[in-house]
């Protein structure tokens, strides 16, 4: 076995199967479900259709709030007829919203397929509203439309819009890009602090008061692999990305920390010394939790773009054999290090033709299929164990203390099948 830091080609040269057919993936609006929780002072106003509102509601799954911090301004027949008043309508809805929600400091106008097809200019709307509400409220726009974005790309497009609006700065420091659950974020900050990395900034930040600048002395480490556009704009603004595998599992986390440490002149030995207990713990937890996964075959359908880093974790740390790794987009800048550490991946696919891909799943009969919610139960009914991918986006899975949980998420469907003694018909 190669060590995590070792340079090898892994699967970087594997030919990519590119498919274009029916995509069975959510659109970027879905990201709002977790983004609004990571930015408690923000409201996400989708300008779209009843379908968009229904998607958000269905993806949220439960309806708990009196008024969540997201909503849909539903376009009506009258808005479609003449464009001039659509901008006025946005102003009216925003005024009404902001007068009711005094707690809002950041407002995101989110584009959808209908708003883009009718060429409703949300950038213009954001600019106008910004002029009206600054400095109390910051108004930005991004797209979550299904014709431009899939699932997690909504976060990418949101963060890219935030980066574009950031001031320039020469201050040296590290920016961590990618949303994380609080508990994981705290652990990460603690790890970085103990290693000796100071002045860490977070994107997205929890509050607009924590605003910071970007410039040639900014270093960026990514904790989510789906941030291609954010990556590009950060690089354009002079920031220096840290390439590393993603911090999943013990090996991923260690490699990620070491890559950052080395950027700041901190030795790898120091990282080892500081993280030793956590590494041991993580290794033990993964070993325990991944027992049912060892030697099993896994097929990942394209969903969240977490697929490549997870495939690395599953193959390198949990002993799984990869059948196919599918991803909506393959950003080599971001997942190159993970790809390099995957020793063997027979099929690497980008895009999707869901019917053909399901034919491949049926032919391969993997022990575990990682897929979206629309496909999970139908595959289970065909006798195939599945793990729904959306849980991987909502659950704390990064860094050492979650390494065992991450393996456990994949192991649970297999453990469950082993336990059940009554067959489903």
């Amino acid at each position: 076995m190669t060590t995590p830091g070792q340079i090898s080609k892994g699967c970087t040269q594997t030919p990519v199967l590119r498919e274009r057919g029916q995509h069975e993936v959510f659109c970027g609006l879905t990201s709002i479900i977790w983004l609004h929780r990571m930015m408690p002072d923000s409201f996400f106003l989708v300008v779209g259709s009843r379908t968009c509102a229904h998607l958000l509601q269905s993806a949220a799954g439960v309806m708990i709030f009196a008024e969540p911090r997201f909503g849909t301004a539903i376009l009506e027949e009258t808005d479609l007829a003449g464009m001039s008043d659509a901008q006025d309508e946005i102003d009216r809805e925003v005024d009404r919203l902001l007068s009711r929600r005094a707690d809002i400091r950041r407002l995101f106008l989110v584009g959808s397929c209908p708003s883009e097809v009718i060429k409703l200019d949300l950038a213009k709307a954001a600019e106008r509203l910004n002029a009206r509400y600054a400095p109390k409220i910051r108004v930005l726009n991004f797209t979550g439309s299904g014709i431009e974005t899939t699932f997690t790309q909504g976060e990418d497009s949101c963060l890219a819009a935030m980066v574009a609006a950031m001031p320039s700065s020469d201050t040296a420091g590290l920016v961590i890009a990618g949303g994380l659950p609080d508990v994981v974020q705290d652990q990460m900050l603690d790890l970085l602090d103990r290693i000796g990395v100071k002045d860490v900034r977070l994107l997205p930040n929890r509050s607009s008061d924590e605003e910071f600048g970007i410039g040639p002395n900014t270093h960026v480490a990514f904790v989510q692999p789906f941030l291609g556009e954010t990556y590009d704009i950060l690089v354009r603004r002079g920031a220096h990305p840290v390439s590393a595998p993603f911090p999943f599992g013990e090996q991923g986390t260690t490699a990620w920390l070491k890559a950052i440490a080395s950027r700041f002149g901190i030795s790898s030995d120091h990282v080892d010394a500081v993280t030793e207990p956590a590494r041991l713990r993580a290794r033990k937890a993964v070993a325990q939790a991944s027992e049912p996964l060892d030697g099993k075959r896994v097929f990942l359908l394209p969903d969240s773009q977490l697929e490549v880093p997870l495939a690395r974790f599953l193959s390198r740390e949990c002993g799984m054999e990869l059948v196919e790794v599918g991803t909506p987009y393959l950003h080599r800048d971001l997942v190159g290090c993970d790809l390099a550490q995957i020793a063997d991946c027979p099929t690497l696919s980008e895009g999707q033709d869901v019917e053909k891909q399901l034919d491949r799943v049926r032919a391969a009969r993997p022990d575990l299929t990682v897929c979206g919610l629309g496909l999970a139960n139908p595959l289970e009914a065909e006798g195939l164990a599945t793990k729904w991918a959306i849980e991987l986006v909502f659950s704390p899975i990064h860094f050492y203390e979650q390494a065992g949980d991450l393996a456990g998420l994949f192991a649970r469907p297999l453990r469950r099948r082993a336990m059940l003694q009554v067959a489903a018909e």
Partner: protein
Amino acid sequence: MKLSVWTYEGPPHVGAMRVATAMNGLHYVLHAPQGDTYADLLFTMIERRNHRPPVTYTTFQARDLGSDTAKLFRDACQAAYERFKPQAMIVGASCTAELIQDDPGGLGAALGLPIPVIPLELPSYQRKENFGADETFLQIVRTLAKPTDRSARVSCNLIGPTALGFRHRDDITEITALLNDMGVEVNVTAPYGATPADITRLGAAHFNVLMYPETGESACRWMERTLDQPYTRTIPIGVGATKDFVEEVAALTGCIPRLDTDRLRLPWYSASVDSTYLTGKRVFIFGDGTHVATATRIAREEMGFEVVGIGCFNREMARPIRALAKDIGVEALISDDYLEVEGRISNLAPELILGTQMERHIGKRLGIPCAVISAPVHVQDFPARYSPQMGVEGANVIFDTWVHPLVMGLEEHLLHMFREDPEFNDAAGPSHHAHGAKQVSDAPDPIGAQIIWLDEAERELRKVPFFVRGKARRNTEAFAEARGDSQISVETLYEAKAHYAR
């Protein structure tokens, strides 16, 4: 433009999906962007269907818009036909495709497939899910159903049940048995479980039973006009309504009105002294028009409640609901604005809400118990057990369901997912009753009394979801004790977590 936070109904193409998914041998080709595939999960997750909905989405992207989205549509139709070999296809556009005006109906027809290709015109920016289901089923029926000889024995069609319907699965069983008891056979149930071939046989029935006007009324009207089939107006939900339904069927068919009430328990349960406390309970009723109207009658005549307000979210039912409200001297609320419904409930301060999953959440916030009587549905509305709303067993189920929140206060929820949001916190608790909610204690066990939790560890522990926090605390203490530690740090907490990792 209208700001919407939660919606009672999806877009009309979701209604069309409810029809397509309910049927067998029918395929729906929907011109739509990839994100619209989310609708599959409504069926596979909420209803736990073990098959994907029979829907092919063209999933066009921005880059296709400049080129040829019409070709994408044609290719998708052709591929769907070849792969699924359906008996008939329905074709249409979602909201986005409606804007690009590719004319799926025309494109589908031009393919010259050897099966009926039925075009759907569902105006996404004007209408909603129930309309979509009703209109889709009408189009299928008017394309496929033909006049035929009536069956030798008295028979009827059950019209209106769809996928994702509120207890449709069990209502079909109940009503089929009830009709069989009267000597009436069911010719075809549709859309639920029907094939396009079955639809061609609809005309053999002597009459139609309109189970759900929301999704079946247009088709029943059409069949009345074109196939000369009368249809029933009474929705057999509740004891009184079920008896009226039996009378109505008898009048239509000349059969003897017969209802087996051996298993009917609602009247006695309601009369028994234990139910005295239900007397005059103030209830607010909200949902789809059909379920609200039937629930209003049950509440007043069979449970002895006082109905303080009613309303429905589907505008198509505004007229009958307004008339009913006038009859019983309350104001009707016709709205699909969730905040407006919440406002009304909070003004009326009822003691019980009979509503949808939306009102269940309103009730939770306001501390008012709620029983669910209508779509929009939730995974809980598809129980494993038999639990119809219609007929004799339906009445029993309704008695239990309505009384349950009053007695116990329901509850469980995925609170943990949202527990850190400013709008919500642990203290609201897992109970349906916001007031007097009891927290499951996660206080230290006596065994851990000598072990000290350091502040930081205590804070970390609070990040653990409340329903497993007690267990996490006990495990950590047991772990620390076994190691002979006297203090628990964050480190200990995670050591213990790793130790117990499964």
